[in-house]
């Protein structure tokens, strides 16, 4: 996919079976929305390649009939909630009465019946997105495209909407593609996940597996493995990565050096840079010979149990993952100088 001479996106293959959900997880600017629009033949950019629908090359009329999309901002038409929910069915030539009958169960499933006659201008952003999602589902699409539909919603609204969507999709023959930058959304909604970075798919597989096994520095950062441990620090062949919540200061000097699990790493020495109380957790930043590490301790850490800033500490890293695809030689830790793996 190109804009002028610039390549926006290059995806060799991506498939979604009916009844399943694929999450395309990527950072901002990775090309997620671009990919989604290309898949729906909704893009104004130059796309080369083939999009197959039920094994046949998809034409615009075929695709228009098969897909619906929910965009990041709920774009509704002036009028009532009910009129908006039936608009996809109306575009497909259905009478207003029939469309209302078809859409009603979806309005019930998504809890919109009490809102049916409300003017959309009186809705909150969360309610509007709920209308947008119901409108897309009411068509009974073969393919449902979701473009970061939960971004900008407060956490309660978001959790409710994700649960309702998951319940609504279960048992439906719809192939769903969700693009998001949030791995929790991928985990909650998608059986499969593809990681998209810089316009290319870096990993693709079952969600639980992909989310827990980063293959390179970029995917590690995307998946929350933000602590990078170069081979020089760990004595392993490959660089390791770990989540901050699995990285802790060793506060009890009698703590043994060996971990319980294979993926545990020998304690890493460093100096304490700062501690920040975050309410439900305490963040501790440590500088090591291999670069900075972030530790996340649950709850409040009493100040008395911590060494002073600049003092020597040891860090225990659990559930580290080896970046097997990344060569350990020449690896320099630190945020600005990570090698870009491909």
């Amino acid at each position, binding site marked *: 996919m190109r804009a002028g001479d610039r390549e926006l996106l290059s995806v060799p293959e991506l498939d979604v079976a009916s009844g399943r959900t694929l999450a395309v997880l990527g950072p901002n600017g990775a090309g997620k929305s671009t990919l989604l629009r290309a898949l729906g033949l909704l893009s104004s950019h130059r796309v080369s390649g083939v999009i197959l629908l039920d094994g046949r090359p998809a034409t615009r009329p075929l695709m228009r009939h098969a897909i619906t999309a929910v*965009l990041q901002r709920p774009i509704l038409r002036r009028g009532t909630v009910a009129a908006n929910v039936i608009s996809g069915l109306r575009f497909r030539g259905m009478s207003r009465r029939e469309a209302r009958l078809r859409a009603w169960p979806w309005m019930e499933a998504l809890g919109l019946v009490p809102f049916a006659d409300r003017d959309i201008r009186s809705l909150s952003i969360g309610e509007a997105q709920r209308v947008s999602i119901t409108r897309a589902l009411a068509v009974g699409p073969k393919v449902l495209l979701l473009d970061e539909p939960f971004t900008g919603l407060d956490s309660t609204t978001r959790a409710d909407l994700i649960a309702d969507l998951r319940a609504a999709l279960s048992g439906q023959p719809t192939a769903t593609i969700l693009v998001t930058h949030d791995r929790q959304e991928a985990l909650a909604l998608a059986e499969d996940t593809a990681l998209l970075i810089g316009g290319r798919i870096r990993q693709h597989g079952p969600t639980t597996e992909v989310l827990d096994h980063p293959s390179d520095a970029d995917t590690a950062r995307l998946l929350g493995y933000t602590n990078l441990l170069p081979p020089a620090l760990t004595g392993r062949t490959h660089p390791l990565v770990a989540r901050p919540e699995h990285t802790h200061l060793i506060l009890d000097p009698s703590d043994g050096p060996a971990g319980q699990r294979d993926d545990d790493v020998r304690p890493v020495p460093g100096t304490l840079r700062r501690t920040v109380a975050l309410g439900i957790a305490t963040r501790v930043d440590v500088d090591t010979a291999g670069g900075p590490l972030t530790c996340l301790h649950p709850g409040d850490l009493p100040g008395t149990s911590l060494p002073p800033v600049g003092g020597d500490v040891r860090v225990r890293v659990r559930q580290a993952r080896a970046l097997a695809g990344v060569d350990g030689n020449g690896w320099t830790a630190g945020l600005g100088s990570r090698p870009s793996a491909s």
Partner: protein
Amino acid sequence: MDVLFDGFVDAVELLLSGDEDSWTIIALTLRVSLTATAIALLVGLPLGAIVALARFPGRRVLLAAANTGMGMPPVVVGLFVTVLLWRSGPLGGLGLLYTPTAMIVAQAAIATPVVIALVAAALQQVDPDFRVQMQALGANRVRAFAALLGEARLPLFAGTMAAFGAVVSEVGAAQMVGGNLVGQTRVLTTAAVLATSRGQFSLAIAFGLILLLIAFGVNLSLTLVQQQRAVPR
């Protein structure tokens, strides 16, 4: 005050008397201004949509030109149309000068920039992804565009009313290219100017009032359509 009062009385009498000359003037005013507005819409709506939605070099310059055109003095437009249609002018062979057709051309030229500028503004205030979202619900390009027009119906109707208001009230172009020929090209504005210059103030006021009444009638119709429910249940 007597003059004003007499004007009101004359206007009512003129309307009720069924005076043929007055009705000819009223009918021509409506015909010329409504036709000119319709032509301006036919030309201006697609152009305004292109300026609003397409991306091409010079787009902003075009929009600025249309915005400037909104304030173009009718006399200037009248002058250009007169020169074009003058017997020795480039379109002189058509013999259109001092005909209602010439007045329609001039008024359409006045109204078209108004329509282009206001259509562009109306469509640009809708979410830029609106058409993509409509297509992603099953609309083809034409229906998605129609849905966009429906979404922008309030400002689009306002633009239509502004265009009609600009032409029905102008006098310079109508006078220059029409010539104010009685029974042929005399409209309410030119008739009012003539009556005033002759000192027939009450008649001039009568024409003015009728003009206001017509403008109100047309705008009332448009407003009623504009304010209908956007997406019927």
